């Protein structure tokens, strides 16, 4: 099947592409010092890079809105940060996004998508399909990357928007970049 061929090709190429390393460099150049995250497989390489970085504080959150508040506090204290989350976590952030919106604080969110290209799990669809609309409803500037080459430049652009114009900005990293999971395949193994 052509579909299988595409999936196999993406699976084979996605882990080899160094986009997480490029994103790490972009975030370092942007002066990021605090990283709040609820883990996602798509962020694992970037999380490992920050975990190994003594100049950056990596904070595991119990829920994503904690990170919105933490980075607002960081900004009050003169530090820049980034929030790493999965699209489902965007839903947890909605009211907390009032804070950067009304205070004109920068907030940089890197959102790995589920409920998107090639999704297997139907429960991921409602929030995945509602992610961009939810963010935009709360005044977050949303940009999207759907190829590995496009991720770091998109993050660079969003970081500049966030930190130079004091606005919340999110980058949605499409499932096509990350490779779609297939639990049915995993269950058969």
């Amino acid at each position, binding site marked *: 099947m052509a579909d299988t061929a595409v999936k196999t090709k993406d699976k084979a190429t996605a882990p080899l592409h160094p986009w997480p390393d490029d994103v790490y460099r972009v975030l370092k150049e942007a002066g990021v*010092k605090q990283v709040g995250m609820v883990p996602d497989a798509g962020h694992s390489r970037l999380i490992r890079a920050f975990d190994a970085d003594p100049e950056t*504080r990596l*904070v595991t*959150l119990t829920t994503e809105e904690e990170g919105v508040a933490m980075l*607002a506090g960081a900004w009050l*204290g003169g530090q820049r940060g980034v929030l790493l989350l999965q699209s489902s976590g965007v839903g947890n952030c909605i009211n907390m996004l009032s804070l950067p919106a009304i*205070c004109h604080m920068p907030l940089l969110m890197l959102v790995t998508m589920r409920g998107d290209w090639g999704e297997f799990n139907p429960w991921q669809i409602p929030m995945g399909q509602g992610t961009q609309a939810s963010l935009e409803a709360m005044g977050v500037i949303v940009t999207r990357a759907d190829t590995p080459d496009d991720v770091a430049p998109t993050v660079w652009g969003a970081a500049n928007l966030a930190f130079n114009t004091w606005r919340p900005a999110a980058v949605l990293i499409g499932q096509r970049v990350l490779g779609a999971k297939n639990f049915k395949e995993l269950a058969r193994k």
Partner: protein
Amino acid sequence: MTNPNALLHRRDVVNELLRDRGDILVIAGLGAPNWDVSAAGDHANNFPLWGAMGAAAMMGLGLALAQPKRKVLVVTGDGEMLMGIGSLATIAVEKPPNLTIAVLDNERFGETGMQKTHTASGVDLAGMALAAGIRTSQTVRTMEQVSEIRDLAHQGKGTVFALVKINPEALVFTLPPADGVILTTRFRQSVLGDEALYN
């Protein structure tokens, strides 16, 4: 002060926490804790929240990590703390030595008609903070204990959580500036200097 079972008055508590405040940085949770902190004296080093319920403790964490040489005091209410209850776990893991969280516990949602919160039914926030791993966590029932918390907050030798049992009294509002940009800018200018205006 003679009856140890008498509930404390919230403005007395906050006035004592902020006595000789020096350069301590204060995050105030939305609602009455905001008005209490503002009644003690509007200050550039206060960040009083008007919304974003559940944010106060985590804003304190981000600020404490960004400014490790400064002391950070979060003053919030039981309802606000309950909404961000997971942040106790996050803060316990990070253990910033310069962060004190004082929860003014009237066991009520005060702004919305004094409905009972979970603490009225026995939920023990100080016990939850302790179990999360914040080792200096206590329930405060006397002004002497409030003074001890005030001193710990200024010493900054470990994360502190204090659950202060207060009278469910409704007091006259004392309002700080409501504009988030004004609050943010004056706070940053005070902490970071005039450079904050240029970046």
